């Protein structure tokens, strides 16, 4: 009917599986690397089971010496005397899965964490944006490798097929149903994602490939494996719909690293800080969002309340290097009451990111620079130390201004007498001798309902030294001293 399509056009939906072949190892290594230099070349393994007597997962070096998952720790240590051991921490696996889902959400609104060892996302609808697929796939591999996450990637018209193919053959992209049937028929049964008992039953009956099972009469198959497993097979091959529970991105960000030993020194704390911010920045890039600020939470030993440092940015920012610079300034200027046992990073607001105008020759606009300067100053000196000024509509001079965090451009509305550029607040008695009166009096009187009503006569005076003073006497206090309220600097 028609010629072959000019470009790769996959089925819709088209699912991408990011399979994590060594989730527990990656999660642990990422955690350790965040705290200090981590040696992945030496043999190490994670343990689980009663009293941590069983190997949960072993790294490449350990596996090369015969250590494998499910082995007794005692046998593993005999095979590999230098084996380093650590208890498997499922929370770290969960955190890595969650993080990977957030990453995938940057590419697709349909992301699922239903499968324990795989993150699934719908890639077909975003292919126009991030494709072509070979380039997109390379990007996924590069970025995830940079974060220390090993993935096997495959795409297929059904989520379960994508997962199965990723486990069988890294890099496979199956465009349509016909091709899928052919490949699935050859899929080793063990990779089809069937429940363990159903798998054992079928293997005992001599079935090796998925095609052998699919060739069976449906009624006979249902009798053998039960309707639930049959349904899973139907969803795998696309004979039945497979609605996935979808991942909802968090509205706030929170990540935490626990240290093995309490850390006090800022020069050591920068390592976990850098790791936390790198992940945070990648998360922000994926979400296409910048943050107006974030919080560093230093956990302490029992009984001591955590130390919280707010890092506020003048303009939403998502660049890892900038976030790190500001956080580091904050860290350097802070003093922890006691050493920290954990470091957390939290962000409550994750608004949309609007890329600033970036000229080819001017890396950042002056606006951007001003925002960055504000952030940098505030990070080291504190928010209160870096402020703008605003005019307040009142007649009482000392109340006619205020500090503001974020200033607004406003046209001056007040039409009053000359005002000094330096204010002295509260006013002090003028010590300098008065040479002459340049201007005045100007009566400044506030309404009776003003909080602190004033009634003063202001003068502009020249001191004998040549300074110009803004000074007043309370009405009725003409015999008293001059009160110096400012300098006409």
């Amino acid at each position, binding site marked *: 009917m028609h010629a072959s399509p000019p470009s790769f056009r996959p089925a819709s939906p088209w699912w991408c599986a990011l399979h994590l072949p060594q989730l527990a190892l990656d999660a642990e290594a990422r955690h350790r690397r965040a705290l200090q230099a981590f040696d992945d070349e030496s043999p190490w393994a994670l343990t689980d089971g009663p009293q941590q007597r069983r190997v949960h997962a072993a790294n490449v070096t350990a596996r090369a010496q015969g250590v494998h998952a499910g082995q007794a720790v005692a046998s593993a240590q005999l095979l590999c005397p230098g084996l380093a051991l650590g208890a498997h921490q499922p929370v770290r696996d969960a955190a890595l899965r969650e993080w990977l889902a957030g990453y995938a959400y940057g590419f697709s609104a349909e992301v699922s964490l239903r499968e324990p060892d795989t993150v699934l996302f719908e890639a077909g609808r975003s292919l126009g944006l991030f494709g072509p697929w070979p380039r997109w796939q390379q990007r996924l591999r590069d970025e995830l490798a940079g974060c220390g996450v090993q993935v096997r990637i495959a795409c297929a018209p059904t989520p379960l097929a994508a997962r199965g193919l990723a486990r069988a053959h890294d890099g496979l992209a199956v465009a349509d149903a016909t091709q899928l049937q052919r490949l699935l028929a050859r899929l080793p049964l063990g990779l089809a994602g069937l429940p363990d008992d159903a798998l054992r039953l079928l293997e005992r009956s001599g079935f090796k490939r998925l095609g052998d099972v699919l060739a069976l009469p449906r009624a006979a198959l249902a009798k053998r494996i039960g309707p639930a497993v049959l349904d899973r097979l139907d969803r795998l091959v696309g004979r039945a719909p497979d609605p996935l529970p979808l991942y909802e991105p968090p509205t706030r960000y929170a990540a935490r690293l626990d240290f093995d030993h309490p850390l006090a020194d800022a020069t050591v704390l920068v390592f976990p800080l850098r790791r936390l911010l790198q992940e945070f920045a990648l998360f922000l890039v994926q979400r296409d969002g910048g943050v107006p600020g974030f919080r560093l939470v230093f956990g302490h030993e029992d009984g001591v309340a955590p130390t919280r440092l707010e890092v506020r940015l003048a303009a939403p920012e998502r660049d890892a290097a900038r976030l790190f610079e500001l956080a580091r300034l904050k860290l350097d200027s802070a003093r922890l009451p006691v050493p920290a046992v954990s470091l957390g990073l939290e962000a409550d607001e994750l608004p949309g990111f609007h890329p600033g105008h970036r000229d080819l020759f001017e890396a950042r606009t002056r606006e951007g620079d001003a925002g960055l300067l504000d952030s940098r100053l505030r990070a080291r000196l504190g928010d209160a130390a870096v402020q703008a000024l605003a005019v307040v509509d009142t007649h009482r001079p000392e109340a006619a201004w205020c500090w503001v965090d974020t200033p607004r451009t406003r046209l001056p509305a007040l039409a009053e007498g000359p005002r000094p*550029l330096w204010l002295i*607040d509260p006013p002090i008695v003028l010590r300098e001798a008065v040479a002459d009166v340049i201007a005045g009096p100007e009566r400044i009187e506030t309404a009776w309902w003003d909080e602190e009503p004033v009634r003063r006569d202001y003068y502009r005076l020249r001191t004998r*030294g040549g300074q110009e003073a803004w000074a007043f006497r309370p009405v009725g206090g003409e015999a008293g001293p001059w009160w110096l309220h400012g300098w006409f*600097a």
Partner: protein
Amino acid sequence: MPAALVSLDALIHQRRLWPAAGQAAGRPGEPTGHADLDAALPGGGWPPASLLELLLPMDGVGELRLLLPTLVRLARQGRSLLMVAPPYLPYAPALAAAGLDLARLRVVRAEGRDALWAAEQGLRSGACGVVLCWPQAVDDRALRRLSVAAEQGDALGFAFRPLRALQQPSPAALRMEVMPGGLVRLHKCRGGAAPATPVAWGATPSVALRAVH
């Protein structure tokens, strides 16, 4: 030591030799907003991208009014203004009445090394047109850092210092004494000889500060 071998620093200090600054040399000056002062300055204005020293016999002799036209103009051009550790409260109603866009101004309250750090950051950032600072007990090295930062960030760095600081040499591109009665005296200015007599910059204060409608 042979008489011909005189140290460069000494010559510079005696104002017999003027060091030409890097990129900024040769560029016309930044207009001060005061015609008589512009005429007296070698480049026709403030030496651009430089550290400039204003030396005061005391506070309140017109030192901010002298700079107001420069501040207002650069703020209108979208440059930020930074005041680091001012000795008094900058009074917002007076600044606004002079036409200064307060949204462009940041005031940093800090002391000692923090204040110097903030001034240097502001100068270097490229965002600030002007940084005003009041360095306390500052040494030559710190002033040199500010001077380099001003050049890198293409900013005017005004350092307000007591008059007695004139006795120390300074890397500033301009050293100007602010005198009562709307006068300034140039003690040093990059790119030319400083006029020996005071220059009237024409401060008619009541006009300059009258509120605008």
